[in-house]
């Protein structure tokens, strides 16, 4: 199912939640909508779902205009942030709900529904728990029930709102892999909302980064990380040291910091340097090491520039010993944007 979002706008009162958003999603893609809270990502997801209608613009499914079609008519599977499982129904009844509500010829037989529920429980590795109530399940298990309930209607598109937000770190990691596996097994076009960049970069085929109701950039995890289109993306995706200064003749200067800025126009600018792009270099700028923290194979270095500003460096663990006292650094790669 291909999905096209065209110039979609949505206001809540006077507050604009979506500001002329365009987005094309290919069949079978797994796309993350990434952004800080209030960036409009959940509103965009709900607009795609048919849980919100836009004030302007169009939503197309497979080229068909569904802008004002109901969620049911669009055949979306939606996983809610707090799962929204029906508390008084068993897991099996929860999963079967979307099939139970069908009428007449569309309604599968009881045996078919039972088989479908069993298959879905197997898919999310919850076999034998069909008779439990949601309150008797762990957070991760509830999440899986919500996922299989959304899949039960054989949706044309699967939409998930902060699917891992309410889970602890370990469960979150394993469920990420689970979602990827389920997506690959079913091939259903999937869109999920998250504020966790690590989650988006690890899981998605493409990531759309939203800020203040606009899409700042859409691309593969690699593209948005290594070729950020805007200062916001650069600061939001991945760690980055941020400097405000000026560009002159292909060099960026901010106090003691001098960075290469090939091709950047002269004038005031903002530069970002990823911690792992900073290397020891005798010809570089000076910094004083405050602290070195070893994290697995990496050494995270907190350093201070002569003017007192802090700077973060990420090096290989084996090089940790080189980071003591006064060091000189230079950047292998910078991202410079006109201010």
């Amino acid at each position, binding site marked *: 199912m291909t999905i096209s979002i065209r110039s979609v706008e949505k206001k809540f009162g006077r507050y604009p939640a979506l500001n002329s958003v365009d987005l094309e999603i290919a069949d079978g893609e797994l796309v993350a909508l990434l952004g800080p809270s209030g960036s409009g990502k959940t509103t965009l997801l709900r607009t795609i779902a048919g*849980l919100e209608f836009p004030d302007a613009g169009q939503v197309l499914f497979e080229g068909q205009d569904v802008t004002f079609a109901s969620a049911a008519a669009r055949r979306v599977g939606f996983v*809610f942030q*707090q799962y*929204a*499982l*029906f*508390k008084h129904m068993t897991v099996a009844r929860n999963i079967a709900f979307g099939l139970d509500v*069908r009428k007449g010829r569309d309604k599968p037989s009881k045996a078919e529904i039972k088989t479908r529920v069993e298959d879905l429980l197997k898919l999310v590795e919850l076999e034998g728990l069909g008779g439990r109530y*949601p309150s008797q399940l762990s957070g991760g298990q509830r999440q899986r029930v919500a996922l299989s309930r959304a899949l039960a*209607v054989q949706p044309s598109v699967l939409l998930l709102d902060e699917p891992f937000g309410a889970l602890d770190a370990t469960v979150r990691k394993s469920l990420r892999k689970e979602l990827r596996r389920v997506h690959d097994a079913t091939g259903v076009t999937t869109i999920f909302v998250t504020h966790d960049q690590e989650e988006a970069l690890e899981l998605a085929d493409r990531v759309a980064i939203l800020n203040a109701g606009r899409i700042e950039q859409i691309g593969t995890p690699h593209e948005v990380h290594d070729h950020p289109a805007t200062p916001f993306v650069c600061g939001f995706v991945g760690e980055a040291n941020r400097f405000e200064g000026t560009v002159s003749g292909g060099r960026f200067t901010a106090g003691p910091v001098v960075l290469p800025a090939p091709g950047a126009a002269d004038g005031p600018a903002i530069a970002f340097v990823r911690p792992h792009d900073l290397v020891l270099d005798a010809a570089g700028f000076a910094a004083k090491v405050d602290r070195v923290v070893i994290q697995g194979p990496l050494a995270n270095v907190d350093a201070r520039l002569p003017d007192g500003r802090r700077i973060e460096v990420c090096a290989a663990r084996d090089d940790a010993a080189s980071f003591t006292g006064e060091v000189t650094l230079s950047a292998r790669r910078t991202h410079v944007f006109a201010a």
Partner: protein
Amino acid sequence: MAQSKARHPTEDPVWAKAVIIGLMLAFLGLVLILPLAAVFAEALRKGLGPALAAISNPDALAAVKLTLITAGIAVPFNAVFGLCAAWAIAKHEFPGKPLLITLIDLPFSVSPVVAGLIYVLVFGLQGWFGERLIDHDIKIIFAVPGIVLATIFVTFPFIARELIPLMQEQGVAEEEAAVSMGASGLYTFWRVTAPNVRWGLLYGVLLCNARAMGEFGAVSVVSGHIRGLTNTMPLHVEILYNEYDFVAAFAVAALLCLLAIVTLVLKGLLEIAQPDVKRGGGH
């Protein structure tokens, strides 16, 4: 040091607890238990025989019957409309919502006597619809319909007030989930919304019932106090009392108390049977 070890660090000292609990028990005893005991004591002052005779008197039986009929109509009516109002307020956004919330509280803030007078003004002989009602031979004031209407008015907020916070807390995510899977509005209401509030609804129904059976002021205005016809139990108690028939008055009052106590016991059992009603349950 030894003393501080004996009690929990955030607990009050023993003497403070004793004083507070003692005060509370003394107050309850004086204001609630003593009068209640007095009702039963007065009813049985001349023995069980006269008390039973007072209750089985045809006028008393008619009052009991009318009270049960009134509650039997008012409570289901308020259950349905309370559920509708709570659903509209908690699950939907619409202009004028604050006004509706205020209106639901109106019966609590208006004196029951005024509530009764409203119906006299509207349906009474001199009222807006008075002549038309007489033309069609419909009697509302000084008849059972007036009593039922006044009772509905006074007890309307109980169920709605019980359900609104509960429904608001539950939010609309489950309803959205149901609708997104193709459920109709009605199906969603019966299969998702209603089951989630059933215990709160039952609780509201019991409170509403207790109040409906005990309502005096509003009913007194619209009833006309016709013995055996338009007297509810509270009105019957007053009449007997004013006639210095104390044993009979207290006997009927005791019966009314028993109905209230049964309601409270049911409410207590409900809380035990469903321990997570008040704790939110679910998540």
